[in-house]
């Protein structure tokens, strides 16, 4: 039985781990991975203390700082469910492992949103990707589609026009990203923009062979012969494990007070999985720290 269990190894969970260790709480960090969304960030220019740092390097620094403390770590073990027990909480992992703690910091972050169209799941990793900076260069000289209209989609399209033979940008709405990015894209000669087009289907046997899109105004359908589909349509919170304990907000986020409390005493949440405004590495880290300090007070009240 641990004093504190931290679920999630992104910036919120790792910062929480440092604070928990320094409060000498008997702590377990359990997470599917280390670094979370920072793993998809190449250059970071707004984390205080670093004018520029690459994502992997920042993760390494976080991890090194956490690992100098004697807290237990179970990495590569994704928690699928959190339950209330008499003495606190029990987390059950995908592999069936069970961990108990008196208090919990829930900091599982967000993941890319799926389109939910036919072909998407089966062709993921076979032309369908959610990490343009990772997999983009594999598609050099090929024709690809970027799905989405926000900043991440525009950035992916900007990266890909330099690499791919042709880029089709498909957005359900008019482009919603920053004007500066839209301006940059207007220079690209190998780009077609389809706004107010719905992506209906991703086609292909073993690998992506095309996408089917529909013009929402004219109702016409069009086939794009692409070999890669980059899906950049935002993020969804990894809040499924606490669905049974907490009423989530309309976006599936965990509502928290300004002290990171949830509606369940002893259960705190931090970072991108919560309804805290602004999803930033430094905000999440700060929330992780705050959550642990609150949890520490809660644990002290229990013993006195």
């Amino acid at each position: 039985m641990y004093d504190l269990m931290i679920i999630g190894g992104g910036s919120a969970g790792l910062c929480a781990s440092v604070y928990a260790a320094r409060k000498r709480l008997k702590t377990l960090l359990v997470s599917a991975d280390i670094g979370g969304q920072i793993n998809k960030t190449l250059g970071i220019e707004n984390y205080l203390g670093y004018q520029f740092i690459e994502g992997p390097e920042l993760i390494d620094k976080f991890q090194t700082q956490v690992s100098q403390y004697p807290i237990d770590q179970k990495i590569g073990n994704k928690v699928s469910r959190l339950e209330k027990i008499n003495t606190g909480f029990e987390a059950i992992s995908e592999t069936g492992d069970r961990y108990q703690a008196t208090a919990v910091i829930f900091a599982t972050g967000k993941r890319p949103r799926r389109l939910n169209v036919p072909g998407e799941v089966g062709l993921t990793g076979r032309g369908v990707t959610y990490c343009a900076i990772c997999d983009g260069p594999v598609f050099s000289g090929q024709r690809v589609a970027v799905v989405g209209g926000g900043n991440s989609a525009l950035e992916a399209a900007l990266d890909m026009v330099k690499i791919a033979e042709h880029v089709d940008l498909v957005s359900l709405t008019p482009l919603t990203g920053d004007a500066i990015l839209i301006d940059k894209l207007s220079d690209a000669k190998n780009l077609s923009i389809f706004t107010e087009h719905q992506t209906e289907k991703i086609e292909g046997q073993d690998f992506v062979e095309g996408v089917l899109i529909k013009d929402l105004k004219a109702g016409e359908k069009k086939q794009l012969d692409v070999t890669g589909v980059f899906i950049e349509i935002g993020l969804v919170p990894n809040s499924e494990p606490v669905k049974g304990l907490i009423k989530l907000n309309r976006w599936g986020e965990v509502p928290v007070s300004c002290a990171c409390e949830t509606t369940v005493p002893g259960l705190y949440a931090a970072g991108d999985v919560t309804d805290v405004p602004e999803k930033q590495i430094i905000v999440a880290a700060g929330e992780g720290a705050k959550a642990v300090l609150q949890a520490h007070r809660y644990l002290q009240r229990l013993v006195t």
Partner: protein
Amino acid sequence: MANKKVVIYSTPTCPYCKRAKDYLSRKGIPYTDINVAQDRDKAKEMIQKSGQMGVPVITVDNEIIVGFNQAMLDKLLA
């Protein structure tokens, strides 16, 4: 540790690839890095071997790992 042949198929911009390479370096494990962004034939080889197009792909002798999976990597290197 026996001398296992480690190859990583990567792209220069992929953060997971960088983490995997840093991890191997820190453990003192020699590896061959293949930049699939530059080498189209090797990109095809990676897709054939792993049945998918995401990077990194790491091979340890004849075993294949898709992605930077530290636990699996440790297991295959042990």
